[in-house]
Structure formats: structure tokens, C-alpha cells
């Protein structure tokens, strides 16, 4: 296919939401339609990218014709496309949910949501496509700004407080990351990860990693996440928990597996942090009294899983472990979005989200309960969910590389997830009236996401094969 079309395809995922984000605030009505249209366009572009990608070698685009190192280069390899596509699916569904849910639940927000949401989306896509560390820095900053805006939407004290906390930690994190970039540049004279591969100095790697951990709320730098995610409106928290935090992981993946392939001790340390995240996050999820906080802490825990990939992706097992981790990220994204949307419905239906008082949901909002349950299945990593096949691959790698202790973490994490999920499910049973009976359509959207997370286990064979082949 011709280069022009390719470059359009590459530009669309960034340009469409960005443009829409700029236009929407100016519109008087039909905002949601415009936003959804742009979203649909992104989905289409992502699908096309997947369709036309050639298995060996990635599609590239030098933005504005400038070539690296001065110019910006976008690159769409399988990893990027996978994240693009999953983000697109999630974001579009979330947008639909927002369009259907907010006008009734929180009319005040209905209009103000779109701009930050679309900027967020655009920044995310740019991040996925960026190939050099400085672009990544910029996109990360934009992403952070958009995310913080989403958090502030509710506008009351907790929201603003959480947002500010988020902003400051992110700021510190990005500064540290930028220092790492500087060191990398001085050491290698390049900013391109592929070009710098193998030559990344330890200090730079350390700084960039920690900076990213701060931005991605990776244990023990996760403290800002729960208040921020819990304070945002349902669609916002869905996007934040499902995709935004994973952007940091996405960069770590490229950084450690592509640019710094043989830093085993460091990978162990990352996995150690992951272990901490799994245990600590689950434990706190267990102790939460509010549903949204519980879900947020479960995000902290689930991000820990992802870090386990680093020591596992070695030798002949790098393929399976890599594929498993990516697939875990995807299916967790779907599930987590579903959970937060469901939490939104709960909020709307009960006027609160205190776990102890969820009675009656099973009767009056069965779809939402089912959504929480199915999403929970993915978090627990049980069949037939995508979480299961991902876990299967990671476990295989753990035993295959003789690192059974990471296997213990994976298994324990699943159990803890079961405990806190069923804490919620169990609370929903029993007869009680709801404050408001929620609308059906938004519930079905959340349900669709949860089902997608479940189906991600059934249709996994082909994508997993391709990911294994594309593994660095």
C-alpha cells in the first residue's frame, strides 16, 4: 500500500481525537455525537492498521517530514497497534457510556467531560506511536494533564485534592524521567530506543524507570492513584484505571525488553516491586469500605502482575511471557473499565458506593452485578477469561525458567482478587429497594466490556501467536 495512506492511518489515531477535542467545546449541541464520531474513526484506523501491518518490520511516519533525531518519528509495530486497538475499543465504549449515562446521572458533567477525554485519548495514541524517549516524555506530560483534568471534573474537595496530588507526583516523576532522558542522550547521542538498544546507561535506566513508576502508580509509588481514580466520574476513572496507568508500563516494556535486553538484576527488582504491588494492593482492596476505592486498589494490584513479566521474559520463554503480559494488560483494561462503569451505575442507583450497603443490586440491577462478577473473573485470572490464558503463559514461563516464586505470586494474587471480588458480589445479594432504578442501556455497555474481557480468553490463540513472534 502507498506511503501516503500509511501515514494518514498513523496520523488519524492522534489527529482525530485531538481535533474533536478542540472542536467539541465550541459546539452548542451534538458534542457527544462529534466525540463518538471521532472515536469511531480511531477504532476504524486502528483496525485498518492491524489489517495492513506487515508482520516483519513496523510502519513508520516522520511527522512533518523531519527525520530523527531532530524530527518526530511515529512507529506502529504490533505492540503499539495492540494497545491502540484495545484503548480504542475501551475508550469508545466508555464514551458511549458517558453519552448515555451522564446526562441522567450527572448532567453538570455531561458537557465538560468530552474535551479532557478526547485529549487524553489523543495523547495516549501519540504515546503508543512514539518511538523516542523524549516524545514519550512530552506525550506523558500531555496525558497527565488530560488525566488530571478528568479527575477534577467532579469539582469537590476530594477530587481537587486527589488531582493536585496526582499532578505533583506526576510532575516529580516526569522530571526524574527527563533527567534519565538527558543522561541517555549524553551517553548515546540518540533518543531513539531502537537506536540506543543495548547502550542505555544504568543511571539513565534507573531514573527513567522510577519516573515512569511514579507516573504509572507502580508500587510503592502508587499512593496517589486510589484517591484520584476514586474521585473521578465513572467514565474518567474507567479510562484512568484501564489504560492511562498502563501507558507507563507500555514504556517500561519497550525500555527494558527492547532497549535494555540484558539487565536481569534490574528486572528482578521490578518484579519485586510487582510482588509488593500484588500483595499490598490486594490487601488494601480487602480493607476498603467504598466500592470505587476497592476497584482502584485492585488496579494497583493488577499493575503488579504486569511487572512480573520482566524476569520471566528471558531466553526461549521471552515470547510466551511477553505475549502473556500484553494480553493481561489488554484483558485487565477491558475488565477494569467495565468495573468502574458498573461502579458508576452503582453510585447512581444507590447514591453511594459503600460496600456494606449494596443489598438489592442483584435483584434490581442484575446486569451490573453480573458485570462486576464477570470482570472479577478476569481479575482472578480464571477461565474462560483473557486473564486466565495470560496467567497460564506467565505461569508456564515462571516454571519453565525455574522461577517458581513468581508463580506463587501469580497464584496468590488470583486468590486475593477472588476474595475482594466476592466481597462485593456477596454484598449485592439480598432484598432491598434502590434509591433510583438505573437505565438499562449503560449497564449493557459495561456488561459488553466485561464479556469482551471474558472472550479475550476464547479468541486468544491467534493474537497470542503473533505477539509471541513479534516479541523483542
Amino acid at each position, binding site marked *: 500500500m502507498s506511503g501516503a495512506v500509511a501515514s494518514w492511518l498513523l496520523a488519524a489515531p492522534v489527529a482525530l481525537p485531538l481535533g474533536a477535542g478542540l472542536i467539541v467545546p465550541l459546539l452548542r449541541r451534538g458534542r457527544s455525537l462529534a466525540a463518538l464520531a471521532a472515536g469511531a474513526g480511531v477504532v476504524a484506523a486502528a483496525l485498518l492498521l492491524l489489517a495492513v501491518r506487515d508482520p516483519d518490520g513496523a510502519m513508520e511516519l516522520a511527522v512533518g517530514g523531519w527525520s530523527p533525531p531532530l524530527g518526530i518519528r511515529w512507529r506502529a509495530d504490533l505492540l503499539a497497534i495492540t494497545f491502540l486497538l484495545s484503548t480504542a475499543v475501551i475508550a469508545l465504549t466508555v464514551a458511549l457510556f458517558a453519552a448515555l449515562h451522564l446526562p441522567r446521572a450527572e448532567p453538570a458533567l455531561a458537557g465538560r467531560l468530552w474535551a479532557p477525554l478526547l485529549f487524553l485519548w489523543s495523547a495516549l495514541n501519540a504515546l503508543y506511536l512514539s518511538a523516542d524517549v523524549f516524545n514519550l516524555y512530552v506525550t506523558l506530560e500531555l496525558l497527565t494533564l488530560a488525566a488530571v483534568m478528568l479527575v477534577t471534573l467532579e469539582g469537590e474537595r476530594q477530587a481537587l485534592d486527589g488531582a493536585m496530588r496526582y499532578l505533583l507526583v506526576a510532575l516529580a516523576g516526569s522530571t526524574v524521567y527527563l*533527567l534519565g532522558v538527558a543522561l541517555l542522550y549524553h551517553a548515546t547521542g540518540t533518543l531513539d530506543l531502537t537506536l540506543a538498544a543495548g547502550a542505555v546507561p544504568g543511571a539513565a535506566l534507573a531514573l527513567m524507570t522510577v519516573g515512569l513508576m511514579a507516573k504509572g502508580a507502580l508500587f510503592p509509588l502508587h499512593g496517589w492513584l486510589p484517591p484520584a481514580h476514586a474521585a473521578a466520574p465513572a467514565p474518567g476513572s474507567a479510562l484512568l484505571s484501564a489504560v492511562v496507568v498502563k501507558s507507563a508500563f507500555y514504556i517500561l516494556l519497550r525500555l527494558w525488553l527492547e532497549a535494555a535486553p540484558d539487565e536481569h538484576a534490574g528486572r528482578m527488582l521490578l518484579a519485586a516491586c510487582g510482588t509488593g504491588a500484588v500483595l499490598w494492593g490486594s490487601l488494601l482492596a480487602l480493607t476498603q469500605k467504598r466500592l470505587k476505592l476497592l476497584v482502584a486498589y485492585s488496579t494497583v494490584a493488577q499493575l503488579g502482575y504486569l511487572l512480573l513479566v520482566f524476569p520471566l521474559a528471558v531466553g526461549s520463554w521471552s515470547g510466551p511471557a511477553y505475549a502473556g503480559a500484553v494480553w493481561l494488560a489488554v484483558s485487565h483494561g477491558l475488565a477494569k473499565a467495565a468495573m468502574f462503569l458498573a461502579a458508576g451505575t452503582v453510585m447512581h442507583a444507590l447514591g453511594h458506593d459503600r460496600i456494606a450497603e449494596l443489598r438489592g443490586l442483584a435483584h434490581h440491577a442484575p446486569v451490573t452485578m453480573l458485570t462486576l462478577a464477570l470482570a472479577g473473573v478476569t481479575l482472578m485470572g480464571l477461565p474462560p477469561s483473557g486473564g486466565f490464558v495470560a496467567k497460564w503463559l506467565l505461569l508456564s514461563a515462571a516454571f519453565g525458567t525455574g522461577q517458581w516464586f513468581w508463580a506463587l505470586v501469580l497464584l496468590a494474587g488470583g486468590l486475593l482478587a477472588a476474595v475482594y471480588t466476592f466481597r462485593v458480589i456477596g454484598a449485592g445479594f439480598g432484598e432491598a429497594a434502590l434509591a433510583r432504578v438505573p437505565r438499562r442501556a449503560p449497564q449493557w455497555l459495561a456488561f459488553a466490556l466485561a464479556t469482551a474481557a471474558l472472550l479475550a480468553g476464547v479468541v486468544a490463540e491467534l493474537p497470542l501467536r503473533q505477539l509471541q513472534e513479534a516479541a523483542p
Partner: protein
Amino acid sequence: MSGAEVPLAYALVGMVVLVRALYALFVRPHLLHKLVAGNLAASGVFLVITYAPDGGPPDPVAQALVLTGIVVSVAVTAYGAALLARLNETSGKPYLEHDHEA
């Protein structure tokens, strides 16, 4: 820009500024301090970036980075200031909840 040498001192100063600023960002209770400190920290990094041991021709990339970086950090700081203002008017005090007590 002339190809003057940017000595290591710059970089070291940049480091110091960064560390000091970050310290302030984390420890100073007042949010304005925090924001300014964040901005300073970024500037510290820029100093590090511009470090060019051997004179030679100026490095356009480094300059591009710094310029972009400055834009970004200004944006962030500006947004932070706006947020601070809103927080201040809703809660009445320019501090974060639960931090810095005791």
C-alpha cells in the same frame, strides 16, 4: 548561538537544583512552593541537558529538547496554578489533606 563550551559545572549545578527542588516539592507544605519547586526541578534538568563538554557546534537536538521542555513545564505549572486556585477556593487552604500534619 556561539559554540561556547558548557562546562560540567552547569550540569552539576543543574543536578543540585533538581535535587533541592524535588525536596521542596515533596516536603514544603504550601502548594505554591510545591509547584514552583516542580518548575525549578525541570529547569535543573534542562541545565543538565545543555551540558556540552567539548565546545564544537551547538547541538540543535539538545536545544530543541530544552525549548519543548520549557513549554511543557510552563504549561504544567500554569495548569497547576489554576488547580491550586480552585482547590484554595473550595477548601479554603492551599494545602493537601492529611499531609504535613504532625
